[in-house]
C-alpha cells in the first residue's frame, strides 16, 4: 500500500471520527435544525452498520471450526455438529420466521435453557468458593465476609417477614454505604470515559481502529 493511500486512509478515518463525534455533540447542545438532522441521520447510519456485525460471529466460527474439522483437531466431531446445526438453524429460522411461536419455543428450549443453566451453576461455584476464601485472617476479610452474610440474611423471607425492620435495614445498607462506594466508582468511570472520548477525538487513542490497521 503506497504512502499516499496510507496517509489518506489514516487521516480519513480520523476526520470521520471527529465529524461524527462533533455532529453528535453539537446536535445535542445546539438547537439548530440542520445539525440535529445530521446528528440523527448519523445515529441511524450507526444503527444500520451495527446490523452487519451480527454476521461476524458466523464468519469467525465457520473459519475456526472448518479448520478444526479439516485438521481433525480435538473435538472435531462436535465442531462439525456445530457447523451443521448453524446451517440448519439459519435455513429453518428463516423459513418459519424468527418471531413465530415455533422459533420462540426452539430458542427458549435450547439457547436460553443452556444459558440459564450455565449461570445457575454459578451458585454452586460461589458457595464452594466462599467456603474456601472467606477465611477470616484480617480485618478486611472480616468486614467483607460480615457484610456479605449480613445482606444475605437481610434478604431472607422468614427473617424479614416477622421483623420488617430488617428489610428496612437491608435497603438502608444498599442505599447508603453500598451506594456511596458504587457512586465513587461510577464517577471515576465517568471521568475515565470522558477522557477516553477526548483522547479519541484528538487522535491520541487508536484503540478499535488498530484492528483495521486504520492508524
Amino acid at each position, binding site marked *: 500500500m503506497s504512502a499516499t493511500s496510507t496517509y489518506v486512509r489514516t487521516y480519513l478515518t480520523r476526520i470521520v471520527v471527529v465529524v461524527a463525534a462533533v455532529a453528535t455533540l453539537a446536535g445535542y447542545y445546539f438547537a439548530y435544525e440542520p445539525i440535529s438532522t445530521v446528528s440523527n441521520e448519523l445515529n441511524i*447510519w450507526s444503527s444500520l*452498520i451495527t446490523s452487519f456485525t451480527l454476521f461476524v460471529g458466523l464468519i469467525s466460527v465457520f473459519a475456526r471450526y472448518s479448520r478444526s474439522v479439516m485438521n481433525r483437531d480435538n473435538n472435531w466431531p462436535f465442531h462439525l455438529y456445530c457447523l451443521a446445526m*448453524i446451517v440448519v438453524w439459519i435455513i429453518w429460522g428463516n423459513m418459519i420466521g424468527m418471531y413465530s411461536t415455533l422459533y420462540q419455543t426452539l430458542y427458549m*428450549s435450547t439457547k436460553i435453557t443452556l444459558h440459564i443453566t450455565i449461570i445457575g451453576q454459578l451458585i454452586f461455584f460461589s458457595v464452594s468458593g466462599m467456603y474456601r476464601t472467606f477465611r477470616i485472617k484480617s480485618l478486611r476479610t472480616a468486614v467483607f465476609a460480615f457484610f456479605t452474610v449480613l445482606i444475605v440474611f437481610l434478604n431472607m423471607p422468614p427473617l424479614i417477614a416477622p421483623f420488617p425492620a430488617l428489610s428496612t435495614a437491608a435497603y438502608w445498607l444498599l442505599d447508603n*454505604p453500598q451506594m456511596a462506594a458504587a457512586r465513587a466508582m461510577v464517577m471515576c468511570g465517568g471521568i475515565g470515559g470522558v477522557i477516553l472520548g477526548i483522547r479519541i477525538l484528538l487522535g491520541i487513542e487508536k484503540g478499535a481502529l488498530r484492528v483495521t490497521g486504520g492508524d
Partner: protein
Amino acid sequence: MISTDPWIWLSALLSLSCFSLLYGDNKFFRWAETTYTAAVVGHSVVTGLLTLRDRLYPLYTGTNLLLIIPAILGVLSLLVVWRQYAWMASVSMAVLIGVNTGISIRTLMGTDIIGNTRAVIGEASTIVAADASMMTKFGYLIRVVFTITALLYFLFTIFPRKGTAATAFDVIRDVGKYALIIYMGISLGNSMQQFVGTATSAIYRLTGLWLGLG
C-alpha cells in the same frame, strides 16, 4: 406426571448435560456447549437477516436513498475478520466510534459526573436540614463521607508521605478502602438472589416442567 412435550425433553436433556459439568468435563457437556454455540450464531444470523430487511425498508421503498451509504459501509465492516482486508472496514468503524464517542461524552458528563456530584451536594445539605430524621441524616452523612473517601482512594495516587498531612491522607484512604470493601461485600451478598433464582429456574425446568413434581 412426566411431560410428553418433545421440547421440554430436549430442554431437560440439555440442562442435565450442562449440570454434568459439576461432575467433570465430559462429552455430554461438550454436546451442550456446541449446541449453545450453534444456537447463538444461528440466532444472530437470522436476526441479522431480518434486521437488515427492516432497517433497509426505507431504501427499498425509496423514502431514504441515503441509506445506501451505511449499507455499503456495513458490508465493508465485515472484512474486519480478514487481516489482509481489514483496512477496508476503517471508515465503518470510524463512524461507529465517532457516534458512540459523542454520545458517551455527553451522557457520562451529564449523568455519571454532574448528576452524581449534584446528588452528593444535595445530600450534604440534607445532613444539616432540620426536617429530616436522625437515621436519614446519618445515612446521608455515610453517603457523603464514603463517596468522597472512596473517590480519593481511587483518584489520588500521589499523596504526602510525611507529617500530619500524610497521617490524614492515610486515614482518608483507609476509610475509602473499607467503603469499597463494604460495597463489594454487600453487592456480592445481594447478588446471591440472582444466582439462586437462576438455579431455581433451571431446576424447575427439570422437576416441574419435565418430571411434573411440585
